[in-house]
Structures are given as C-alpha cells and as structure tokens.
C-alpha cells in the first residue's frame, strides 16, 4: 500500500504515518502550522483500508474498531473492504452473508459518529469480465469534525482501465448560508391591519381598456393588498443561533435515515427494516448527543450571572 502527495503539498504540510503493526491499513496524520479549512484544527487524519487475499478470497481483516474511532480531529476513512450494505447500495439484493459481514462496520461507524459520503447507489466498481454486477465497494466515511468541509464526492471521472473508478473527494472551508427570510403568516398582526383593509378602495377599472391599461390598473390593485399583508406580518429570522447544536453531520444522518425509512416502507423486507431501524437509532442518538454536548459546553462557560439563565433553560 502506498500514498502519493504532490511536492507542493508536502512542502506546506507534514505527513506522518500514525498506525504501526496493523496490516492492510494506511493511516496518515496531515498537519500544518496554519489552521486547516478555516477551523481551529491544525491536523486531520486519513485512514485507508484494503483487503487480504486468503485462499483465493479477498477478505477484510481490519476490525471495525480499528477503522472507526471517535477522534477529536477531522477523520476521513476510505477504502475497499469488500462490504455491501443497503445504506450504500439500496437497490442491491443482499445475501445474508453480505449483511452479516457489513453490519458491524456500519454500526461501528454510526456509533463513532461517522457518516457515509458515497451518494446512494452510485457504483464505484464495474467488473471488466462482465460476469459480475457493478457495485458500490469503495466507501468513504467522515467524522463530524470533517463533514462540514466535505463539498462532495465525485465518481464520474474517466476510467483508468482498472475495474474501480477514480474517486475525488473535495474538501473546502464550510460556507454557512442562512436560510432566506419568509413571512410567518400565522403571526399576521390583524389588529392594526383590519382598519386599513376596511378602508382600502380599489380604483375603478377602465371601461374599454387596452391590455396595457388593464394590466397597469391591475398592477396597482393587485400589488397593494399583498404588500400591506407583508408589512404587517412578522418575518422569520433564521440564524445560526436558532439551533446551535445542529451540524452538517446531523443533516447527513437525517438524509440517510429518511432514505432508509423510505426504502423500508417501499419494499418492506426485514433487511431494509433493520437498516432503517439502525439509521433511525443513529440519527436520534446523534441529536441527543449533540444537544447534551451543547448544553455541557454552555454550562462550562456559565458565569455566576448566568445562573438564572441556565435554570430557565434547564
């Protein structure tokens, strides 16, 4: 197993192997004196895993615990460990053996908070012989610290002649775009608005108008009532403080949960129901963990003056 880095990259970052004595795993710690991806992190870890050929069978001897650890630095786990799961390949008909071999890896990844980056069902291996079917074999996982930096995973690059397609994972500083403001129609202030609406007079329409005359009359008559309504309706102010515990990781888990639940509802097989249950448990557990973590950090930073604020929230 080998890793290649561009010379310009290596002149700016230090790359050190972090695993020793484990076969089929290459782990690299990439560090920099400058903060990475506009965050407070100065290093991140990439783990890549592969298979061992034992008696003409390719098997993964790397344990889930080795691959998926809960780290306090950004972590990217990639590799072909020959596992098939409904979360990565929803339309594949899975054998019991495939389920048994893949479930521990996906469960451990969920427990450690790692999310699958592969787009559901996008094949990464196209067998050259034509006997076997295409599959989603090359999996990529990111932990919550790295997930905001993941801009996408592309598998649409030209083939290199190998049966696995090239994969590009784009990492960049996260961009936080607040949701657009929209009127909260349930909170329209009718009290001051009602007298204005009662007094509102529509100017008389022209008798034999041209289309332009009629449209200009309508523009005056049609635009004013919605404008009045919007003036007297509160606007939602979505901000990053409204749910400070929410993270892109939770967004990914929510998407996975809804995809798995939809598949389970549609096909109703026991396997898909199990996958949906695992996704559901992982998603809600992650919400609970995120809330607890946020509350703990709030309490840690609390001052004697903010005691009553904390009590109000408790």
């Amino acid at each position: 197993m080998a890793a290649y880095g561009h010379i310009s990259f290596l002149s700016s970052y230090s790359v050190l192997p972090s695993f020793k004595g484990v076969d089929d795993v290459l782990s690299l710690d990439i560090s920099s004196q400058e903060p990475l991806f506009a965050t407070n992190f100065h290093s991140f870890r990439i783990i890549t895993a592969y298979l061992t050929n034992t008696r003409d069978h390719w098997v993964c001897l790397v344990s889930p615990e080795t691959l998926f650890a809960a780290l306090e630095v950004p972590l990217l786990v990639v590799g072909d460990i020959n596992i098939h799961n409904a979360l990565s390949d929803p339309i594949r008909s899975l054998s019991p053996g495939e389920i048994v071999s893949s479930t521990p890896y996906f469960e451990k990844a969920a427990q450690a908070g790692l999310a699958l980056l592969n787009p559901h069902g996008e094949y990464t291996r196209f067998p050259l012989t034509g006997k076997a079917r295409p599959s989603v074999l090359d999996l990529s996982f990111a932990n919550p610290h790295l997930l905001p930096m993941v801009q996408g995973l592309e598998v649409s690059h030209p083939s290199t002649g190998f049966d696995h397609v090239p994969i590009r994972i784009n990492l960049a500083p996260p961009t936080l775009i607040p949701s657009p403001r929209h009127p909260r129609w349930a909170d329209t202030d009718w009290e001051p608005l009602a007298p204005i609406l009662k007094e509102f007079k529509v100017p008389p329409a022209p008798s034999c108008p041209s289309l332009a005359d009629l449209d200009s009359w309508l523009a005056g008559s049609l635009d004013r009532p919605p404008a009045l309504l919007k003036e007297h309706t509160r606007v939602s102010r979505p901000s990053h403080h409204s749910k400070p515990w929410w993270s892109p990781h939770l967004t990914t888990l929510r998407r996975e949960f809804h995809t798995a639940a939809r598949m389970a509802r549609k096909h109703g097989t026991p396997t898909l129901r199990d996958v949906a249950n695992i996704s559901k448990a992982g998603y809600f557990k992650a919400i609970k963990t995120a809330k607890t973590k946020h509350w703990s950090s709030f309490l840690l930073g609390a001052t004697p003056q903010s005691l009553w604020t904390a009590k109000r929230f408790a």
Partner: protein
Amino acid sequence: MNKVLLDHFFPPKEAFSPPPRLRPYKKAPPLTGEEISTALSQCSPISAPGPDGVPNSTWKQVNKINPFLLLQIFSPLVSLGYHPAALKGSNGIVLDKPGKPSYESPASFRIMFLIHAFSKILDRIIASRLLLVARSKGLLHLNQCGSLPGLSTYDAVLTLCNDEKTMQRPRLKVSSLFLDIKAGFDNVDNSTLARILREGGIPPYLISGVSLFLGERSCTLVFQGAPGTPARVNVGAPQGSPISPLLFLLYVAPLHFGIPQGLMIS
C-alpha cells in the same frame, strides 16, 4: 437540463394573440360576494402558496374583513373575460415519477405548478361557472367521472362493473379496453379547446377568460441547479390550477361522444 425539461413538457407552439382592446361582455352575469366566498371556502388553507407567497388562509381572513376588496378586483376581470398576465407566472416544481428504472429522460419527471393564490380564487370562480354551463349544454359525457363534484373514480369503477355484469347475464361476451392519454394536461391546445367551447355554446366571456388563462403563461422551473429564469409557455393546462381538470375533461369529451352507438366504453 432546464431547456430539455422545458422542451419536453412545453413544446414550442404558436403564441396566442390576445385582442388589442377588451370590451365588457354584456351577457356576463355580475360577480357576487357569495361566489367569492364559495371559491375561498374550497381553497385549502395548507395549500402551497405561489410566487407571491401569500397563502389561501390569509386571503380568507382578508375577505372576512373587507368582502368588497376581492369583489372589486375580480368583477372587471370576469365581465371583460380577462386573465391578467401578472397572475400567469408560476413556479414549476420538478418531481420524479416513482418506480422509473432510469431518470435520464425528462419523461421520468412530472411538473407541479405553484400558482398565485389570487389566481386560484379567480380560476375557481370561472371553473364553477363553466361547469354549470357545460353540464346544462350537455358538453360532458355521462362516463366522465374524474374531477367533477359528486363523482369520482369509485363511480366509474362501479359503472364499469355494473355494465359488465348486465351484459354477462344474457351470456354475452364482454371485453374492456383501457386507454391512457399520455401527458394529457401538458398537451391541451388552446385554439382547439376554444373551438370546442365555441361549438358547445359556451358564453364568449368564459371562452375569452379560458383562452387568456392558457395563453402566454410563464413558468420558472424549480430544481437543484435550475437557472431560475421564467420561460414562455403556450401549451398545456397547468397542473395545480383548479380549472385545469375541467378544461381537460371538456377537451377530451369529443372522444367519448365520438364512440359509435352500440359500443359502450366505461
């Protein structure tokens, strides 16, 4: 992708040319407050709002406060047989049809239009008047059950079963032929529909309102990565408008009436 979807769902057609000057139709019955209240009561309060963003529930409240406001705006439109250009814009939400093996063709998607709530109220008023006249003139075939008040697919199935059993009783051989009109709403032609309505004796103010409603519409497709620019649409009845199902029924009614006597199709 935006262009492929637009070309598929709205193939280029000759633009509709409205009259240069409008005159009030003297035979058009004056609009009443009850008609507006009835139309509003049929509007779902949780229906997705159109481009203006104002939901039906808010317009219901406005009508309670000042019942003359909507009446004063809609009355000239009904008497002139006009559908304003300002209300013909819509957002077209692109939805994928479930269960398709591939989503590489635009035929694997359907478009749902989000129309101005204001336009929907006007459409309901015109639809209720048009339905009344169409039924009185016998423009709708008895076998047409969909999208009509008091009738449903359940009635169509019951009629089919009844007809089959009636014919099976004297040991006659019965066969059923089911037809599906592909992209029905999207292919309603404005000039053909106007001709059908004219030949059916529909009042001119309603024909004018329908023609102006269908002609020169604009649609902004909404999907991830869409350019967000409105495109001209000159074909089809917009799915999402309350009047579109009735217009489609009137459009295909000649097919039902064209079946030779002695051959029954349910």
